[in-house]
């Protein structure tokens, strides 16, 4: 079923009796060409692009819980391509281009809204660093504008522009950045993949791998064994647990990142705003809630909840840059488990086990990467070759000394 305005009109006039479930609920077949472990945003996007762009129809996505129950529904919905390093920026720009055409591509309203992202800076050296970053962005074909204090004052009069400690000295603005309705991304990809023959199997946990002579032949699941020519791990947050079943140790720690939303307010924020002197970022959802977040809690955890010290820290950051936020009441907060990698950058690579592939290590930047991650992973699975923009995301890059350390803090995952 294709969604369109005409269809809504027709269904509305006939009692909405013609709508069908957006995807099937199949039992797994005994064998597939490709089995994807993890039915989150990246796994579903991988399945979608495998079927649509690379002609792979005999594909299954195995999801332990329900579809999109992990970080695809727990993030703060921001899309952007404002990275510095050669290993990252072309990939994220590729992703932003895919976001721009996504809704037409998969015929689903994901509410992609390019309302802009404003990274504030608070000192001259920070401004220099942002100018350099902006230039790197433009070299990759992305858009980047450096704004001065007056322009920012016009755009966001309610920020604390003249604070003695952290005055706003400028900003890096990416007009093409923005927000997306995150659940709809999972649903859109799931529907698109399902329509092209991909089996999405929910409530099916992978409990082991069938590995013989260094070759992966399939997986053991709670719904029985499934054979596969290729097995693709795609379970960020729990990557280490899944990989451990195959005897792999990963350069990853699992950490919790908290997110917050206020009560609904009238439109006040034009786009996404990030505070450059503390870790705080905020945008406003179409429902009106201020959606904001900050740092990870800092300790290893698989619990999808954090602790109060970080709540306090995030709210302090908000009060420092945007004092009016203190008048809004906090409505909800929640946590998501992140794959924090050793250099803050992800992995899209094969493993030393033949036929076993890894997509992991997205830290807290996985949502914006969803389309490109799926596309590049599908490219790797179908052709055996890394996609041009993802060729630096190798699992052995620490051995090779080819880290992609955007922040420059070294092998300390809780600082990335």
């Amino acid at each position, binding site marked *: 079923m294709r969604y369109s305005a005409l269809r809504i009109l027709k269904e509305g006039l006939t009692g909405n009796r013609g709508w069908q479930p957006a995807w099937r609920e199949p039992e797994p077949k005994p064998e597939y060409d490709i089995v994807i472990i993890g039915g989150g945003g990246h796994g579903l996007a991988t399945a979608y692009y495998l079927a649509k762009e690379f002609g792979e129809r005999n594909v299954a996505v195995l999801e332990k819980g329900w579809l999109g129950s992990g970080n695809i529904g727990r993030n703060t919905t921001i899309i952007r391509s404002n990275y510095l390093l050669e290993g990252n920026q072309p990939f994220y720009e590729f992703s932003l281009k895919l976001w721009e055409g996504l809704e037409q591509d998969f015929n689903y309203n994901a509410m992609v809204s390019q309302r802009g992202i404003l990274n504030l800076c608070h000192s001259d050296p920070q401004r220099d660093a942002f100018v350099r970053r902006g230039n790197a962005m433009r070299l990759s074909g992305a858009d980047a504008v450096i704004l001065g204090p007056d322009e920012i004052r016009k755009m966001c009069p309610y920020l604390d522009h003249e604070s003695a400690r952290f005055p706003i000295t400028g900003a890096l603005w990416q007009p093409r950045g923005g927000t997306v309705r995150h659940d709809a991304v999972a649903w859109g990809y799931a529907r698109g993949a399902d329509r092209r023959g991909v089996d999405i199997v929910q409530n099916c946990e992978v409990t082991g791998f069938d590995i013989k002579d260094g070759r992966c032949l399939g997986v053991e699941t709670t719904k029985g064994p499934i054979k596969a020519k290729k097995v693709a791990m795609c379970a960020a947050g729990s990557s280490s647990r899944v990989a451990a079943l195959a005897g792999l140790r990963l350069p*990853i720690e*699992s950490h919790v990142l908290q997110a917050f939303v206020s009560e609904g307010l009238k439109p006040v924020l034009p786009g996404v705003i990030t505070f450059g002197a503390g870790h705080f970022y905020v945008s406003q959802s179409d429902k009106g809630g201020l959606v904001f977040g900050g740092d990870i809690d800092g300790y290893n955890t698989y619990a999808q909840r954090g*602790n109060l010290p970080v709540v306090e820290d995030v709210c302090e950051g908000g009060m420092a840059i945007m004092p009016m936020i203190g008048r809004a009441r906090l409505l909800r907060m929640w946590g998501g488990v992140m794959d924090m990698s050793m250099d803050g950058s992800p992995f899209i690579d094969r493993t030393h086990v033949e036929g076993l592939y890894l997509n992991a290590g997205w830290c807290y930047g996985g949502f914006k990467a969803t389309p490109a991650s799926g596309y590049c992973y599908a490219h790797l699975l179908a052709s055996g070759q890394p996609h041009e923009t993802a060729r630096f995301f190798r699992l052995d890059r620490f051995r090779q000394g080819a880290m992609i350390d955007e922040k420059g803090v070294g092998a300390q995952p809780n600082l990335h």
Partner: protein
Amino acid sequence: MIIDHPLLGPRDAAEFVVLGDASLIDRPDGMTATVEEMHDYAYLRDNPAGDHRELWYHEQGDRSWLVVTRSTLTHEVIKVELARNVARAQGRSR
């Protein structure tokens, strides 16, 4: 989270910074270790779901290093030791 410091009693976890897996105590000898050993030590982690031994530093307190055994599923603190004692017991200290 409350960390029951062996010397100071129960303290708020916000007083600490956390470094990570306590296996970081077992640094290979840089003069004799192979590249593989050094790589695995510096970059690979078990990252278990369950009990995890990790290094915490009491920055806002007595600046001692602790080995905290904590569940990564429930955040329950199970055991707290002075890292010095743990390291000595493993023959790390001279």
